[in-house]
């Protein structure tokens, strides 16, 4: 869920920007030149994922995949998500320039958090890893929803109801993301385990 331009208060915008700069600096330090094309691919994947609509009953919801980004990239997910959001703002005007920081934090912070939380589980092949993958997709969206709600509420009490609705809308996405992240994880484990080496590092 992208927050639009013009909604949040300057303090929240500034806070998001600062956190993003710090996170990006840490992430960039972990990327060497050789790895740039691979990080870029995942960044592009994150961009395109939001164009894939999956049916949930009568409505179509789009994928988020920030859990997967965290799982594959760790801290490097921050610059990757930043770039993807920047391009979305540029090409489709989803989100925007001043909210880029906040939007990056709401997407990337859960990614990094999930990476560290579930890395242990994911290292054990079989059922623990499967549970870890599901939880990773599920939790990342849950945290994103909470952070969006938090950004809105700290802007002003007026947004309380909006924040609640936003959170509610995240519930079906959480479940779908959990399932999809699980299957993607199983696929990668079978087809291209090298891509998962980040969690063993």
């Amino acid at each position, binding site marked *: 869920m*992208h927050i*639009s*331009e*013009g*909604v*949040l208060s*300057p303090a929240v*915008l500034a806070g998001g920007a600062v956190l993003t700069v710090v996170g*990006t600096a840490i992430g*960039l330090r972990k*990327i060497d*030149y050789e790895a*740039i*094309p*691979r*990080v*870029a*691919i*995942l*960044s*592009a*994947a994150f*961009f*395109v*994922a939001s164009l*894939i609509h*999956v*049916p*949930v*009953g009568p409505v179509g919801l789009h994928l988020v995949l920030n859990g997967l980004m965290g799982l594959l990239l760790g801290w490097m997910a921050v*610059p*990757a998500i*930043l*770039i*993807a959001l*920047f*391009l979305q*703002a*540029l090409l*489709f*005007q*989803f989100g*925007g*320039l*001043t909210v880029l920081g906040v939007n990056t934090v709401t997407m990337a912070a859960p990614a990094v958090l999930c990476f560290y939380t579930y890395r242990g589980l994911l290292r054990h092949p079989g059922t623990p890893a499967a549970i870890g993958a599901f939880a990773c997709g599920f939790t990342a969206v849950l945290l994103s929803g909470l952070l969006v709600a938090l950004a809105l509420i700290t802007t002003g009490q*007026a947004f309380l*109801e*909006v924040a609640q*609705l936003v959170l509610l809308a995240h519930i079906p996405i959480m479940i*779908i993301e959990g*399932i*999809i*992240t699980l*299957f*993607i994880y199983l*696929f*990668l484990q079978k*087809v*291209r385990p090298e*891509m998962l080496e980040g969690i063993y590092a």
Partner: protein
Amino acid sequence: MHRLDPRGKIGVAGLFAVLIATAQTYTTILAGLALSLVFLALAGLPLRKVVARLLVVNSFIFFLWLVLPLTYPGDVVWELGPLSATRQGLLFTGLITLKSNAIIIILIALVATVPVITLGQALQNLRLPDKLCHLLLFTYRYLYVFEEEYRRLVQAMKIRGFQPRTNLHTYRSYAYLAAMLLVRSYDRADRVFQAMLCRGFHGRFYSLRTFYWQRRDGTFLAAALLAGAVLFCLEWLKPSLG
């Protein structure tokens, strides 16, 4: 407009985006909106496309209109059964709407008109970290690879009778689609990088364009700074004057 140095345009867009985002009064924001329309006119973009874009990105704003006026505390101006809208709520939502659109129009007019490749090089020129700019350029380049491969895989699913429904088979198939896309693009990324190495790439993107800071760029920047100062005065000095 399109011949202006992209570095100047980026700087000006950033300045106004911040100014308008922090503004709280209708006067400032209306002035900002007027300014954004001036930029739009200068950019000479097809109006219908811009309007179509704006309609799409206003969906979140539309959602706010459904909720905010009804929940914002204040004087009730409109009632229907249990629902009541307040004057303050309507004003507040209107403010957000104008702000949001003004910033987006500036973004469309000033930044979205610059080709992404040029933008990446301009950002590098503006001392953003090299790695970040490379990441931007590579990501943009791979978007097309991804989009094309996505299109092909969706066709492959279609010709084998796949129809999306709400069931596990559908979710699994979508996950496989996404994962296969990832794996293929990941390998393609490696091969493209190898192709670049073969052609002497050593960590620096050269451009056939070089950026020249010309008189008209100076004029543009000066005019923009002046307008910015006016906006600033409108917002922050007016109360103390009045």
